[in-house]
């Protein structure tokens, strides 16, 4: 038998094979369901472990043990809470010299008046970069699992999808369409405002990006996937997503390099409180916002339609 390459094994694994490293047995291969109409043999409750009388006893005792564990856990947690310092007191463990330094030096060193933004994008910028990578990986994994390809769909699925699309375009509500036409620019403007004011007020890349993604989802609901596809297709999606991540990586690497070697940072900090200030924070916020908007829309569209 021909040995599969690693990619075929990966595909088998994502399709539910529990032993992807072994050669597939004849009946382990999962045939495409060409006739899903034939009613699946009703799930037999044969002599399984869980249904036998001994199994029931095991099940019951397991239940009791889990309840006991939950009870013990809640008691331990509440007792721990009882020994914590009081809520709102300044003796809490996190109120220490680290946060004191962030509060007192933050505006001079980094330049943003929103101290939380200072911390997440510059002091702990490397950490937030990892977080953006997690978001990127999450979107990639969802695309890998949900995208329609020849391995996981049949002709019938595609026909059904087309049917739904037709029904949706016929029943698309006029009211939603008109309201969306009015609201769309306002929502986009609001999202961009939050994105670009991340260093001055609450908000920033993650919040603004979610609003932008929500605007895209609203657009898809009102006008259909074809309209959105005309300005936001695979190519644009990949360019924005990878470009934003690379921009973030370059900026944060530059800052770390300059800071570690004691060189002079050529990016001006500007006057704290104005919109063009705080050095690298504004471009990083924009990059993160674009990344988050793309991810939100990708989650929505791949769960619903399986294709961008």
């Amino acid at each position, binding site marked *: 038998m021909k040995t599969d390459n690693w990619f075929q094994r990966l595909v088998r694994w*994502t*399709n*539910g094979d*529990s032993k992807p490293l072994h050669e597939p047995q004849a009946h382990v291969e*999962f045939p495409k369901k060409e006739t899903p109409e034939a009613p699946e043999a009703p*799930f037999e409750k044969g002599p399984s472990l*869980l249904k036998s009388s001994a199994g029931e006893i095991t099940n019951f005792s397991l*239940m009791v043990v*889990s309840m006991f*564990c939950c009870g013990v*856990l*809640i008691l331990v*947690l*509440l007792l*721990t*809470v*009882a*020994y*914590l310092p*009081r*809520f709102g*007191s300044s003796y*809490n463990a*996190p*109120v220490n010299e*680290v*946060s004191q330094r*962030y*509060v*007192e030096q*933050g*505006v*001079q060193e980094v330049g943003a*008046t*929103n*101290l*939380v933004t200072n*911390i*997440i994008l510059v002091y702990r910028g490397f*950490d*937030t970069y990892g*977080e953006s990578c*997690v*978001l990127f*990986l*999450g*979107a990639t*994994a*969802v695309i890998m*699992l*949900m995208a329609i390809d020849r391995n*996981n769909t049949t002709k019938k699925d595609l026909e059904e999808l087309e049917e739904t699309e037709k029904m949706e375009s016929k029943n698309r509500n006029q009211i939603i369409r008109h309201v969306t036409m009015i609201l769309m620019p306002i929502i986009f403007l609001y999202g961009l405002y939050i994105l670009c004011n991340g260093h001055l*007020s*609450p908000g920033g890349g*993650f919040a603004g990006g979610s609003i932008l993604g929500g605007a895209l989802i609203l657009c898809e609901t009102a006008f259909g996937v074809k309209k959105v596809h005309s300005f936001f297709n695979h190519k644009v999606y990949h360019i924005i997503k990878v470009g934003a991540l690379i921009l973030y990586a370059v900026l944060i690497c530059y800052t770390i390099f300059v800071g570690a070697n004691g060189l002079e940072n050529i990016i001006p900090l500007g006057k704290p409180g104005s919109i063009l200030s705080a050095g690298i924070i504004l471009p990083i916020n924009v990059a993160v916002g674009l990344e*988050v908007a793309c*991810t939100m829309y990708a*989650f929505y569209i*791949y*769960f619903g339609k399986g294709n961008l």
Partner: protein
Amino acid sequence: MHLSEILATLAANRFATASAILFVVGMAGMIFNRNLFKKVVAMGFMDSAVFLFLTSVGFVEGRLAPIVTDPSVPASAEVYSNPLPAGLVLTGIVVSVSFTAFSLALTMRLYKKYHSLDIDEIMMKSQRNED
């Protein structure tokens, strides 16, 4: 420590108490539900509990939100409450969103293959497939 003292501290630390209860509710949901989708929702409960606890720890009575209103005056740590836990919670929220989406995608793939969300049924069907 007397019981009355413990209860008084629990009432004072009301957000931490609520987060402890929420955490155990989420864990019980993960243990006792056999539906995979409900398990993912219960995981979200546990995430929220951790975020609630971290946020409540950063608050200091009588201090302002950590946004400097007048940059010309040097900021004092006595004026603003602690900005560090807020940043950590933001990280956690984003990771939990990605994780929820990923586990829901896996659940949907399992449903497509086995036509069921019940974890026991899925296990039995997969074992029967292997035999």
